[in-house]
């Protein structure tokens, strides 16, 4: 009978699983750094397996419903407690009475209907209280008297007013997240609590449906950042800005999102910017109703201006107020010609980002000439098109440029020395641009260059002077540039780059590596030769095997010479995944090495022996390849040969004997 019951249980379980509605679950808490992960185990209390000394406990996604004093009593060493989505609706007094060391309490997603006024008693060290989506309708319902928080997150919680904010001690507060609530109006009296803050606090009102801000409500207050993104469904930007008059904030966000409403900003709406101190203004995804020189009249104090995806074709040509601007972001706009940004408006610019233009961006010569302080220029994914040769004229005047990203653009025909105007370059990314070289040593003036990405540029890796002059180069990526003949035969190819630490030669159609190709690379710590046609793992004797990562994945290696891996130090690794490695006695030394050095093999689970098309894990290989087995095989072979010879001789003798009888 018992067996039948068990069978029924098994069958019903199987049926449920076949229907597939039960996710795979852990069945016990797992140890993590300095603590335990007991999430999603259907627990109603902390299991005994979690020791009293636990410092971090992830108890999220368990059904607690109500929490009382005593539930965490023995865990007095806790620093972090995650109670995310535990269905807690009642939180009674003294729940954390013994958690004097607790620094982070996460209550995300709990429908907190009741929080006792003494619920947080004892939390003397708490600095982060994270409680978004907790259905707290009023800040007054959060017992704040004992708290000295640095972070309070009450986003998405249905707050309708800022009542109760004054009860919080904001002296140490760095981040206050009030985003996605239903706060329609902000008055000066709501903000009294900010009068004594040090001035570095970030406050987010993002996605609140703001209707009214009392003019001058923020006067004399100081902030690290104020976020009013997506707050303009019912009110114009000017309503918020009038309320902000007199404020001093490092960062001000007035942008929108792809999935939110977009408002057209009028020039006159921005007049209040003249009456506040802002260093960094973000207007992402808003749209201009009218753009003129006057639009920027009150932005004279800005150092950073972000105007991503604002459907802009051009900037006015006579902005006289932006002399202090050092960073300008114009990503994802509609500029068609680089000259349309009128770079002369921004003489102090050190960083210009124009990623992801929607159409084609003509990179005309001398457009950026006035940006003599520019250090960072990102033109990637922008359909950059150069008529004629690049980039000597186009980069004219950019003598201080350190970072240049030209990746993912149209094909370019380079000048003999394309970067002659930018000798200070440290990082150059030209990946996925079809490059046509005119000269023999295009980088010879870039003695300070540290990073060069030439992946998928069609440059010839075997070009004898390609790397000439790059004596400071540390990282070189040549992925996806096929090498004709499959072999880099010149042993001096990498001689100009003696400081190279990372080299990528993946997908280059290499069939072999010359033994002394890397002899100059004594500092190499990463070599990626994956996805080639190599049949041999070659570790150059010149680079140190004590600290190196070798990637030979996706090649055609069957046999591995034990000498090439035996010297790999404890911090070194090799990736031989997706190679047709042989699992027979000819590879036995390597197989034994793998079994003893699993930690040195990257992607061990994909490192299989499949010379015979049978994908077998190395741990499953069990070969007998000792010398006696070899001798036995030799002896048997000799015996067979001897018997066969004897049979032939006897048969011949009998045959001749018959002839004689005849």
């Amino acid at each position, binding site marked *: 009978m018992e067996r039948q019951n068990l069978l029924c249980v*098994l069958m019903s379980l*199987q049926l449920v699983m076949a229907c597939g*509605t039960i996710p795979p679950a852990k069945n016990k808490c797992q140890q993590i750094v300095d603590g335990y992960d007991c999430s999603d185990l259907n627990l109603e209390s902390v299991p005994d397996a979690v020791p009293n000394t636990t410092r971090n406990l992830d108890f*999220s996604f368990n059904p607690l419903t109500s929490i009382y004093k005593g539930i965490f009593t023995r865990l007095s060493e806790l620093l972090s407690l995650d109670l*995310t*989505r535990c269905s807690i609706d009642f939180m009674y007094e003294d729940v954390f009475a013994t958690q004097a060391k607790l620094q982070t309490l996460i209550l995300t*997603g709990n429908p907190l209907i009741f929080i006792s006024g003494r619920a947080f008693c004892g939390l003397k060290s708490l600095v982060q209280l994270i409680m*978004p989506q907790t259905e707290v309708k009023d800040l007054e319902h959060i017992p704040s008297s004992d708290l000295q928080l640095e972070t309070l997150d009450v986003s998405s919680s249905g707050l309708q007013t800022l009542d109760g904010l004054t009860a919080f001690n904001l002296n140490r507060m760095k981040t206050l997240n009030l985003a996605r609530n239903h706060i329609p109006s902000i008055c000066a009296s709501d903000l009294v609590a900010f009068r004594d803050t040090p001035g570095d606090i970030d406050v987010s009102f993002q*996605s609140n449906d703001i209707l009214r801000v009392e003019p001058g409500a923020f006067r004399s207050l100081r902030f690290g950042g104020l976020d009013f993104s997506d707050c303009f469904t019912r009110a114009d930007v000017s309503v918020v800005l009038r309320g902000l008059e007199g404020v001093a904030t490092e960062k001000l966000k007035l942008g929108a999102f792809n*999935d939110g409403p977009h408002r057209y900003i009028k020039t006159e709406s921005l007049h209040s910017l003249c009456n506040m101190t802002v260093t960094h203004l973000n207007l992402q995804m808003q749209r201009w109703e009218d753009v003129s020189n006057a639009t920027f009249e009150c932005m004279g104090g800005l150092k950073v201006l972000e105007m991503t995806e604002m459907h802009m074709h051009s900037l006015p040509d006579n902005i006289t107020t932006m002399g202090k601007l050092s960073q300008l972001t114009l990503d994802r706009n509609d500029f068609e010609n680089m000259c349309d940004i009128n770079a002369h408006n921004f003489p102090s610019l050190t960083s210009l980002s124009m990623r992801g233009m929607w159409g084609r961006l003509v990179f005309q010569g001398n457009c950026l000439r006035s940006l003599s302080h520019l250090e960072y220029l990102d033109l990637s994914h922008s359909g950059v098109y150069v008529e004629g040769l690049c980039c000597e004229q186009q980069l004219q005047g950019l003598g201080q440029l350190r970072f240049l990203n030209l990746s993912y653009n149209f094909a370019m025909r380079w000048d003999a020395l394309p970067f002659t105007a930018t000798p200070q370059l440290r990082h150059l990314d030209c990946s996925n641009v079809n490059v046509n070289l005119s000269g023999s040593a295009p980088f010879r003036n870039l003695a300070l260059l540290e990073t060069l990405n030439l992946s998928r540029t069609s440059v010839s890796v075997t070009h004898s002077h390609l790397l000439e002059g790059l004596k400071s180069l540390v990282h070189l990526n040549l992925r996806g540039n096929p090498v004709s003949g499959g072999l880099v035969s010149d042993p001096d190819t990498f001689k100009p780059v003696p400081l190279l630490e990372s080299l990528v030669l993946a997908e280059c159609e290499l069939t072999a590596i010359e033994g002394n190709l890397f002899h100059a690379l004594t500092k190499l710590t990463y070599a990626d030769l994956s996805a080639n046609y190599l049949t041999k793992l070659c570790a150059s004797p010149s680079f140190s095997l004590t600290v190196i990562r070798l990637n030979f994945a996706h090649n055609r290696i069957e046999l591995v010479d034990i000498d090439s891996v035996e010297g790999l130090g404890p911090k070194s690794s090799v990736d031989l995944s997706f190679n047709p490695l042989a699992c027979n006695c000819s590879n036995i030394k390597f197989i034994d090495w793998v079994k003893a050095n699993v930690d040195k093999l990257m992607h061990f689970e994909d490192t299989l022996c499949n010379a015979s098309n049978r994908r077998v894990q190395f741990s499953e290989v069990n070969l007998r390849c000792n010398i006696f087995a070899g001798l036995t095989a030799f002896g048997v072979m000799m015996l067979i040969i001897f018997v066969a010879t004897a049979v032939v001789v006897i048969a011949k003798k009998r045959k001749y004997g018959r002839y004689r009888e005849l």
Partner: protein
Amino acid sequence: MALLFMSQAVLLFKATAEQVRWPEHVLCNSPNFQLSYVSCDPFQDVGLTLNPCPDLHSVQVNSSLSLVLNHSIEELYLSLDLIHGDQKPIHYDDSLCLSHLPRFTFCGRRKGELVNHDWPLKIKAIRYIKGQFNAEIRLVNQDGHQIACANVSLNKG
């Protein structure tokens, strides 16, 4: 009886060892147009609805997506593969949330938050396609954790 017991035990083991299969959800079911999806995330199903179903006449569709986040999404990346027979004719990647460019209101949400996302879609291509199509859609966060996964199946006569 013993044999039956053993076979059940073996089958049970297989069922637990294999990846979980969530139920199929039908979004549209008309004689000429069927659209459905199955969550391919081992930890959770995902709620998706379209109103009205896109057809020859309506290209404007209100979509609504609901899921609980198992991980935070300071960054969120979309990966889509369109599968037609044995081929994957279209692969599409996009970054939905970046720390410097949060494109959607749900960017920056924390672990455990419920994301309810309503978005009007314009589906024009539906008029021109014909046949059976499958698509796999994955959302991955800044640490490489999968946020959601769905296998979508479309059949248009």
